[in-house]
């Protein structure tokens, strides 16, 4: 850097001192987030590989187990998450245009959608817990290889208990595997939704403090990229889990 350019270098208050200008800061941050998203995709891919191996080996188990998943709730959750992605994208637009009030509103809607998603997920999980639709190793599972191991409470209350007794021990064990991968995939995704909610709350707090505007919206933009990835994962989870023919 020549001396003249160094002296003419006026620092914007939003630009950290190790960056030349706001554009460099923005592009660097963006590449950083995309690198993080790359690791996220690989993080989830392990579970997708387990899923495809299990499904390839036992397609009939997946076809049978699919009846226990509620397509309507899965569909509703997909719509809620798509809507939240849309409102976050609107929020980024608001931040770029300096519409901080609209940004606040869109962030609140996104947060509420995320909470709604987790609420519906909670309904699904608690229903599965009460019916014993869990991995075979769980105390509350109805899909024990040995029927004597099934919890008395599940025998008394689960509507699946009658059917489970008619299945072979191997088949019960394999359905348990389906629920293991179901809970791993949706659980890991759910953790990401919860982290996203913390992120949105942090952005809301910063917005209330007046941090964001046309010259400083990087945090909103990068937060939205993370949230869209969470949506992206669910776009694949929905047909893979809820729409098994």
């Amino acid at each position, binding site marked *: 850097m020549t001396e003249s350019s160094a002296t003419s270098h006026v620092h914007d208050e939003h630009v950290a001192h190790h960056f030349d200008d706001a554009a460099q800061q923005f592009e660097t941050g*963006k*590449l950083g987030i995309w690198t993080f998203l790359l690791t996220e*995709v690989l993080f989830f891919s392990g579970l997708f590989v387990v899923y495809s191996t299990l499904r390839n080996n036992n397609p009939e188990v997946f076809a049978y187990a699919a009846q226990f998943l509620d397509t309507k709730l899965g569909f509703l959750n997909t719509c809620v998450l798509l809507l939240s992605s849309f409102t976050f994208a609107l929020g980024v637009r608001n931040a770029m245009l300096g519409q901080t009030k609209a940004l606040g509103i869109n962030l609140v809607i996104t947060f509420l959608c995320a909470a709604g998603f987790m609420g519906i997920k909670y309904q699904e999980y608690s229903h599965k817990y009460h019916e014993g639709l869990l991995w075979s190793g769980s105390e509350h599972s109805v899909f024990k290889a040995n029927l004597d191991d099934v919890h008395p409470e599940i025998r008394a209350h689960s509507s699946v208990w009658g059917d489970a007794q008619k299945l072979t021990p191997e088949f019960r064990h394999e359905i348990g595997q389906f629920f293991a991968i179901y809970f791993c995939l949706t659980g890991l995704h759910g953790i990401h939704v919860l982290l996203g909610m913390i992120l949105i709350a942090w952005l809301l707090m910063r917005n209330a403090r007046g941090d964001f505007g046309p*010259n400083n919206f990087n945090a909103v933009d990068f937060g*939205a990229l993370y949230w*869209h990835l969470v949506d992206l994962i669910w776009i694949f989870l929905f*047909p893979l889990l809820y729409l098994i023919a």
Partner: protein
Amino acid sequence: MSHSDPHSEGPALGHVLPLKMLVGVLVALLLLTGLTVWTGQMNFHGWDLKIAMVIAGIKATLVCAIFMHLKWDRPLNAIFFLISIVFVAVFLAFTVLDTYENEVNVEALIESKR
């Protein structure tokens, strides 16, 4: 700031997406979700999973290109993301191939333990 253009409103950085485009993407995503539920109830004789994955792929492309504005970003970001997809494809393909390859051996092993 070198990137600011006195003739255009809006921020010096980034790309502001038109409202209509964002609404259009949301509508397309919701319609495609409806479509995948509908095709999920049909029987396409072994093509069901492939059709569902193609629809999910179209939805994912829409989210990446528009919502995540990869379409207007520097290509390096998209390249990073595509690299992750390539690795996932390799990971999946080789595991599935190996599963098919060893299925006979695994079955024989299970049989021998009975």
